[in-house]
Every structure is written in C-alpha cells, then in structure tokens.
C-alpha cells in the first residue's frame, strides 16, 4: 500500500532520443531551400545579365491609341535577335492595336531575313476598367484583370517586361513582381513614360515609380 502513495512518473526519456518528430526538420529544410532559391533569384538581378542570356523572352504591354504607336517606335530600335520571342499583350477590348502590331511584326521578321526568329505571340487580358464604367463594378473587373494577368505572366514566364503606361500594365507588372517574390523567376521590368507626359507622370508612371523605389521596376525612363 505504501508503494502506491508515490505518483508514478511516465518514463519517456528513451523515446525522445530515438525518434524526433520529422515535421519541424522538414519545415526547416524547406525554409532553407526557399531562402536559397530567393537569394539566387535576388542575386540574379545584380548580375551582368539580369534578364538572362539573349534572346530574351519579352512581354510587351500595348494600350489603346498612342501607347501602341509609341511602343512600336521603341521596339523598332531593339535588335530582333536579342529580344525574342515578343509576346504582345493587349486588352481584350482593344481592336486597333492588333492590326498595327501584326504589320510591325511582319516587317520585323522581314528585316531578319533568313535568320529564324522565335515566333511572336498575341496575348489578351481583360481591362481593369473601361472608360465610364461605374466604380462599383470596377472592383470586380479589376480583380478579374489581376487574376488574368497573374495567369498570363505565370504561364508566359518572360525574361523582360516592357511597358509604357496603359492601364493594363499595372496588373501585369504586379504579376511579374509576384514571379520574383515567389523566387520562381527573375523578370526585368522596364517602364518608359509616354511621350505625351511632358510635365507630370501618368498614374501608371507614379505606381511604377513607387515600385522602382522598392527595386521591383528596374528601369524607369522618361522622354522629356
């Protein structure tokens, strides 16, 4: 009877040494791998060829009206062999850009002559907001544009994203940044403010400027 008055301590010392829980170890390993991947992608940004070796997969953001015309002036100056394929990305409701782009792309291919270029692609995204659309419905359409942009960029995996300010460019740039932040791919983002902005930046320009300060937009150019 006197033996039962002492509480029996459970004997666990031996099990602690023999089999530790595998979950914390696996998590630690995963964290190390992720950190290594992110560090690798981060360092990539500082290398001599931050976008990788040419030819660079280039996602070109086109917009209505003058934006497309201006972008084509920029593209015409780029050596076709270094920037290919060109992934021309425009709003689903944009009817005028496609014809201009097709003509430009045909001319670009002709300029290359016998040298085969990786074939260009035409990609579409829904617009965040149409002109005159109510602000209430704009929330839903902006969300839709953001998701569509994420899917497009994650599928396309460009080396370089080139834009000059139409509304479609912000969700696409955000998608490019998400690729970098997730450590999946380093995308160089280049923004050229529109020729018509003489005194002040466009809204897209101000957003991209803020992103530039965070290192998310690496090249920010103005024309005046």
């Amino acid at each position: 009877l006197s033996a039962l008055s002492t509480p029996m301590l459970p004997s666990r010392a031996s099990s602690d040494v023999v089999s530790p829980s595998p979950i914390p170890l696996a998590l630690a390993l995963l964290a190390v791998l992720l950190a290594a991947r992110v560090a690798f992608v981060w360092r990539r940004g500082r290398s001599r060829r931050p976008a990788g070796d040419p030819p660079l997969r280039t996602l070109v953001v086109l917009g209505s009206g003058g934006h497309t015309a201006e972008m084509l002036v920029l593209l015409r100056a780029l050596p076709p062999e270094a920037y290919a394929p060109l992934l021309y990305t425009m709003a689903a409701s944009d009817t005028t850009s496609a014809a201009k782009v097709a003509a430009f792309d045909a001319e670009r291919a002709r300029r290359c002559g016998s040298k085969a270029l990786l074939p260009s692609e035409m990609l579409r995204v829904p617009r965040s907001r149409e002109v005159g659309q109510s602000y209430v419905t704009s929330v839903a359409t902006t969300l839709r544009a953001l998701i569509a942009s994420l899917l497009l960029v994650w599928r396309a995996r460009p080396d370089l994203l080139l834009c000059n300010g139409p509304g479609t460019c912000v969700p696409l740039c955000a998608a490019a940044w998400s690729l970098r932040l997730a450590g999946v791919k380093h995308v160089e983002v280049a923004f050229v403010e529109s020729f018509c902005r003489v005194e002040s930046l466009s809204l897209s320009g101000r957003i991209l400027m803020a992103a530039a300060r965070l290192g998310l937009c690496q090249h920010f150019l103005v024309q005046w």
Partner: protein
Amino acid sequence: SSRVCFATVGTTQFDALTRALVSHEVTGLLARHGYSCLRLQIGRGSEPVLPSDPPPPIPIEWYRFKDSLEADMRSAALLISHAGAGSIMEGLRCTAPLLVAVNDGLMDNHQQELAHELDRRGHLIATTPRGLYAALEALPVRAASLEPWPEGDATEFARYLGAALGVGAG
C-alpha cells in the same frame, strides 16, 4: 488638284471640334483659302449635323474609323487633329501643316502639355475648338515657319536597355 483638309479625333469622341469644323464660319474660311474638301474622321463622336441652308461651300465627307489613316493624312493639304499623342506623332510625320485642337472639355487634360510644348517649339499650331477659326485665319502666315519633326529615334533607348541587360544594342 484637290486640297483636302483632313481632321482626325483618333479613337475619342470630340463633338466640339466636329461642330466647329462643319460650321459656316470655318467651312467658308476653308473655301476661301482654297481647300476643295473637308474630310472628317469622327471616331466615337456623334454624327456631324451638316448645315443645309445654305449648304457648305465645299463638300464634307466623314467616317468613323479606318484600319489606317495614313493615306488620308499623307494626301491632305492641311491636318487638324485632337491632342492625342499618337495622332500628333502621326500628323508630324506628314508634310502638311498640323493644327492640334485641345479638348478643353476634358477633366484631366495632360494632353495639352504635349500640344503646347510642340507649338512652343514650332512644330505645330495648338488651339481649341473655340480658337479654331482664328488659328485657321493665322495659318498661312504661321505655316511657313513650322519646323518638321525629326523621325522618332529610339536608339538611345535600345543602347540603354542593351547595356543594362548585357545583350548589346544590335
């Protein structure tokens, strides 16, 4: 030989300009200055109401869109454009004098910055729908001193990007 005055509003709606262009005063002035026809590209704007009593002194044609306005712009003796950068740049590539009408009915009108800067530099004449008649009156004098616009040259851009990305400028 025909001297066409061609006006474009790009993809926008610019009824104030269209109304000013088909007005008696402006069409009369165009006729006096020897233009044989007024051709309007009206984009998303309202159909122009052509005056009937009396009818305009020169024929007025209009349409909404074409795949390319290049042919109409290159064959024009006078270009009138809205202040969109694309239209302005297309207009500057043509030899005809360019009049740019700024839409002062718009809220955020950053477009006027470009029109005024290029007017200041002597490449075009910036005006508004209300100022259109006066600008057209002064045109014969000012047109002589308009400077052609140098071709868009993005080689600086290509050089910068090529160096920054380590891929060369071609």
